[in-house]
Structures are given as structure tokens and as C-alpha cells.
């Protein structure tokens, strides 16, 4: 538990842009390492999918990473945090393994906390009281809108994303309305 929350805290700091030393990650695809957090910045090196990286800091949609050979900026979504390959054993598994667990189908207490299980959900009985509680916290769209204005949130025109985009080198006007 201690380890987990500590790591989460480090990650949170990292992801909010605070500079932290070396969280680890893995490249999810072949990437160019750039000198700055921008698609137009010069490429300083290439790294292939699966390369282990240390994550130094985040800036917007970019992470500054360090490989065994070089250092540079890659897109946030090109990196999977934690060590190991996708779905494979990560740093977390190493910690988790310490708490020896025999029956994976049961709700377990690796982190000292048990999660929801299917049986609980299946046998759940309708709760009018809790539903009333949910209703009582509801707000109107006008209230939400006034609140958003107060903190300076501005509605932005963002087109829907296509199902997938073949990754090409950035073109300046890929904002098409799919």
C-alpha cells in the first residue's frame, strides 16, 4: 500500500508537470526523440517500440524521456508508464508479487483494499434512498455553465476524432472534419 501510493504520488506529480527523477516507461511505438516538446522541433534520435525509458518531465502532450543512448521529447501517448511490455509484468507486479496471492478469481488484498466484485453487483438491490441522494446533488446546465465561466473554461471547437489515424509525420492541417 505504501509503495503503491508513493508511486502514484510520484506519477501524479510527474503528470502534472512537476519535475521528478526517473519514473520508468516503455515506448508503445517507434518514435523520434525531439529537442523540444513540439512536433516541429528537430529530431535528435530515433527509438524503437519497446525501448525502456526514464521519464523526466511532462509538458502538455509531451514527455521528456531518457533512453540508454539519448534523451529527448516524445508524445505522451507514445509512452506506457511502468516497466515491462504492454500487459506484461511491470514494476507494479514486482511489488504485488510480494503479497503472495493464491486465488486470482477472488477479490484480493494486494494493496490492503478489496475491490468490487461481480457477485456484489449481481445481488445488488435497488436503493431508492441512495438514488434520492444522487438526485439531491444534481445541478442544472446553467449552474454548471456559470461555474465554468467563473474559472475561465472556454468552449473550444474540437472536431471528433477518427477511428484511427495512420501515423504520418505531422502535417499542419490535419484538423479535417472527418
Amino acid at each position, binding site marked *: 500500500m505504501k509503495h503503491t501510493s508513493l508511486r502514484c504520488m510520484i506519477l501524479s506529480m510527474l503528470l502534472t508537470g512537476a519535475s521528478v527523477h526517473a519514473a520508468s516507461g516503455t515506448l508503445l511505438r517507434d518514435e523520434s526523440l525531439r529537442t523540444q516538446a513540439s512536433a516541429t522541433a528537430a529530431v535528435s534520435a530515433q527509438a524503437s517500440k519497446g525501448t525502456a525509458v526514464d521519464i523526466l518531465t511532462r509538458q502538455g502532450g509531451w514527455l521528456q524521456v531518457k533512453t540508454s543512448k539519448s534523451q529527448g521529447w516524445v*508524445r505522451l501517448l507514445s509512452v506506457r508508464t511502468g516497466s515491462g511490455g504492454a500487459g506484461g509484468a511491470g514494476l507494479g507486479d514486482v511489488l504485488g508479487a510480494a503479497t503472495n496471492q493464491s486465488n486470482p478469481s477472488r477479490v484480493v488484498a494486494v494493496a490492503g483494499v478489496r475491490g468490487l466484485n461481480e457477485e456484489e453487483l449481481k445481488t445488488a438491490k435497488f436503493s431508492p434512498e441512495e438514488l434520492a441522494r444522487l438526485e439531491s446533488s444534481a445541478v442544472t446546465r446553467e449552474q454548471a455553465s456559470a461555474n465554468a465561466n467563473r474559472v475561465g473554461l472556454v468552449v473550444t471547437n474540437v472536431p471528433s476524432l477518427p477511428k484511427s489515424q495512420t501515423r504520418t509525420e505531422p502535417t499542419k492541417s490535419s484538423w479535417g472534419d472527418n
Partner: protein
Amino acid sequence: MKLKLLVAAISLVSFSGMAGGFDLGKILQDQLKKSQSKSAPAQPTDSATSPQTSTPQNDKGAEAQALSFGLFGKYSTEDEIHIGKQIAGNLLGAVPMVRDEALQRYVNLVGNWVAAQSGRTDIPWRFGVLDTEDINAFAAPGGYVFVTKGLYRQLANEAELAGVLGHEIAHITKKHHLKVLKKSSLISALGQAASKQAKSSDQVVQNLIGNGAEIMARGLDKDAEFEADREGVVFAARAGYDPWGLPAVLQDLAALPAKDGRTSLLFKTHPQPADRLSKLGDAIGDRFDKLSGKELGDRFYRIR
């Protein structure tokens, strides 16, 4: 095609013994007539054009309606809210709301603002934080969205909350759960008719969605999750938030121990975070390069 399905349904019923008192065949016929007289739309997907809604007093109407879910895939907005309310109430029977009114209100303010950018204004959006350390979030038709306290604790700022809520909002705007129900509802509608359990429209809906909040444990298909990721980040970005909120949360989840009990249901019902990040990366590419939304770390409501 639809007719063939109907015929198959009728013959199924006739084999089921039909322990009296329930003229299902007639209901089916009525339903067919009704649908034909309404010039039987080829694509019965427009929820707004669904026929009458039932009342608890009108059991046969409720039956016919339940069957229309199965046979014709029709849902009015009212049906959708009714179904969602039942699922939400059942889920809340398993996990209560966190007793923190300021938190609940805050999440509703953020959620409604994001939902306002989703294009669906015909349903009342409701957001709640569930009192469990389990790390998960849920959506039910008709505008019901829940995030667990466990997941909420993982969040670092309001943009991340907006991203998570955006993903759930997208499940509702894309009617992902209704599509699952549509697939299974014929069987359950027939099953309930045969067992004569239906006493009211609530019962019909309950029978339609299965036991308790089972549908939440069943999950959706992977494509629905990937789609909700793509839509969710866009909703959050439209609302003026930093678009990297949801990806950042997925990064956090990817770093959690695979065997952490708090994520077992989440990972059972969702693709691996790494796959989601990868797919999202493919879809986003450089499209968000010029966006600069707000993270609002200061304004983020911290639990306890």
C-alpha cells in the same frame, strides 16, 4: 428480416409451454401491427420516434414495450432514462454514495459542463462518487455517471476528472449499454413472459437488465471502450480542459500493479490501459498540438 425474427420468437414461445394467463402471441401481433401502421421504419434507431411509454398500471403495455426493445430495438428517451434509473439504483444498492455533499456537487458541476459539450441535452445528467476504494467508473443509460472514490483519489486535477467523466458520458451518448441490452433483451423478454414475473413496467425493465447491476460487471466490447476514449477526450477538450487528462489517468492505471484488487473489475471489463493509450495515440496523432486547455489543479476538490 424483422418479420423472420418475430416468427422465430413466436415459435420459441409456443415451445416454451406458456403456462397460461399470458397471451404473448397476441401482444406480439399487436406490436407487429402497431409497428406496421407506423410505416415500420427500416432503421428503428431514432429513439425519439418510439411509440407510447407504459405506466405501471398498464402491464400489457409494459410487456409489449419490453418486447419492442427486443424485437424492434426501439427506445424512447423516457425508456432510456427509466432503464438507466433502474441500473443506477441497483448499482447504488451495492455501493452507496460518498457522504460528502461538497464533493458530489463539485463532480456534478464539472460533469454537467462536460456533458453540455456532448450534444445530448434531452436527458438529465446525474453524477455521483461511489464509496468504494475500487478503481472504476460506470455509466448507465439516460445520463447516470459514477466514479468510485478509489479512482477519484488517483486524479491530480480537474482536467483528469473531466477526461474520466467524458469517457463515461460518451458511453451514454453512443448508447453503448442500450446496444448490449438490445442484443440480449429478446431472450429476457421472452423468459420473463414465460415465467409470468412481470408485474409492472419496473419489473419489465428489471428483467430486461438482468440481476442487480450485473450489466456493470459484464462490460462492453473493446471497440466501445476505445470509442468512448476518443469521444471522451474530445468532450473534455471542448469544455476547455487540457485534453491530456484522460491519457494521464490511463498512464497512472498502467503503472498500478496488475494484481491490485482495486482494479480487478476494471481490467476485466476494459482493454488494458496500454492498449487504450496506444489506440488513443493513433487517433489523436498531432490533432491536439494546438490545443491549450486548463488543468485546474488548484480548483480540484480533494477528498477528505
